[in-house]
């Protein structure tokens, strides 16, 4: 019997929604991890029963990383801090922004992206983590600036074929990659514009404000990125980037997601600009490309098309990766929408939640 789970991270806790494999009707459960902002959600699908992760920060009691081995019915954390900076760093964890399992060939490896800017690695399935010193000691780190959401490492993209290769995205440091398992890192931002820099300095080696990077396992060298102004594609794992924003109503936004079964299909949720973080024309529209960014089309069926003032944050668009795939996005006004037809139509599955920060989904069994 298949079960579908939808994890919803909000500013005041986590909400689980459940459905069957058809995913037509969802039942929401009471808020868990009460009064914690839940930015970093993850699902480790390599286990027979997937392990769920929730990076939760209490304004009073600080951050922690919780895990669940019963599909979100209960959550645990170890006695000692699962993610913590070493004493010698002088740094203290503020928030966990991303939880990303490693490859099938590395069953215990789980990565965590943190604020302040840092990458952590677990080898015991996500219970305890260690700082990836190679990135933390990079000479650029002290020059990385905080984005509007904080000084965060918010995106982790393991190379699907090579466990030694990994790519991360940092606000505002840009994209960095390693090919030696994290010992050394290089910036990978050529072609991405830092529009706020003076004329002649708008293509720096690093310092871009990348918002999200997504890829497809069958084309590991191809990456798509939503930036703080600009949507880009790389066909060489970040060595060079080219703009694919033509056809979008604006080039600003936070989220981007590649379809799990169609490597040329991807989704974004455009916002007007950083000084106007609202949807263009005040319409709730997901935009889809089916040719890796050469053309874009708005997806509107089932979505509010007037007087709409909410937005979708960087991790609030996801897929359950099932076949057929389900797609889900959450908004800052506490709504969650789902699509079972590649985004052609959407249905409201949750409303009146606290603002949604992240969503993740899986079909199990």
């Amino acid at each position, binding site marked *: 019997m298949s079960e579908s789970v939808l994890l919803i991270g909000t*500013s*005041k806790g986590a909400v689980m929604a459940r459905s069957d494999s058809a995913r037509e009707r969802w039942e929401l459960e009471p808020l868990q991890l009460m*009064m914690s*902002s839940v930015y970093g959600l993850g699902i480790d699908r390599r286990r027979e029963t997937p392990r769920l992760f929730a990076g939760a920060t*209490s*304004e*009073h*009691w*600080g951050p*922690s990383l919780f895990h669940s081995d019963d599909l979100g019915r209960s959550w645990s*954390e*170890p*006695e*000692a*801090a699962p993610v*913590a*900076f070493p*004493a010698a760093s*002088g*740094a*203290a*964890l503020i928030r966990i922004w991303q939880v990303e399992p490693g490859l099938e060939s590395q069953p215990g490896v789980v990565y965590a992206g943190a604020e302040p800017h840092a990458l952590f690695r677990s080898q015991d399935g996500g219970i305890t983590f260690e700082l990836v010193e190679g990135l933390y000691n990079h000479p650029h780190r002290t020059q990385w600036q905080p984005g509007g959401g904080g000084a965060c490492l918010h995106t982790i993209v393991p190379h699907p074929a090579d466990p030694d290769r990994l790519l991360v995205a940092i606000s505002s440091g840009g994209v960095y990659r390693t090919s030696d398992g994290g010992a050394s890192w290089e910036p990978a931002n050529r072609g991405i514009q830092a529009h706020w820099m003076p004329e002649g300095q708008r293509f720096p080696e690093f310092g871009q404000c990348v918002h999200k990077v997504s890829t497809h396992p069958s084309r590991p060298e191809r990456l798509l990125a939503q930036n703080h102004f600009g949507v880009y594609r790389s066909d060489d794992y970040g060595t060079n980037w080219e703009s694919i924003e033509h056809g979008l109503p604006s080039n600003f936004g936070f989220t981007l997601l590649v379809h799990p079964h169609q490597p040329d299909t991807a989704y974004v949720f455009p916002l007007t600009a950083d000084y106007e973080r609202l949807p263009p024309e005040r319409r709730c529209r997901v935009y889809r490309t089916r040719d890796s960014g050469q053309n874009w089309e708005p997806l509107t069926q089932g979505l509010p098309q007037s007087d709409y003032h909410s937005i979708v944050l960087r991790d609030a668009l996801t897929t359950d990766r099932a076949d057929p795939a389900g797609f889900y996005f959450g908004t800052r006004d506490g709504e969650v929408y789902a699509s079972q037809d590649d985004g052609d139509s959407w249905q409201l599955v949750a409303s009146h939640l*606290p*603002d949604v920060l992240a969503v993740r989904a899986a079909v199990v069994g």
Partner: protein
Amino acid sequence: MSANVHLPAVLRASADGRRVVPVGADTVGGALNELALSCPQLERRIRNEQGVVRRHIRIYLEDRDIDDLQGMATPLPAGAQVHIIPMVSGGSAR
């Protein structure tokens, strides 16, 4: 010296449900160091990994904020009562 650390309700789950945790320490910092060993989950709710008390928490010795005394070096007399106080400001983030 023996002292008692009084916990707010929300932290008691991290101390096996106890309202009060006895410690044997000479200073407030020493008391927290002892908690780090005996109840690490509780201690990390109060201090970050660099030993800094979290922003929206106050620690009182009897009726005095330790920030008005000697901070973590504040001596604990025998039978001292230490209170962990969540500030009302902590709920204001969103």
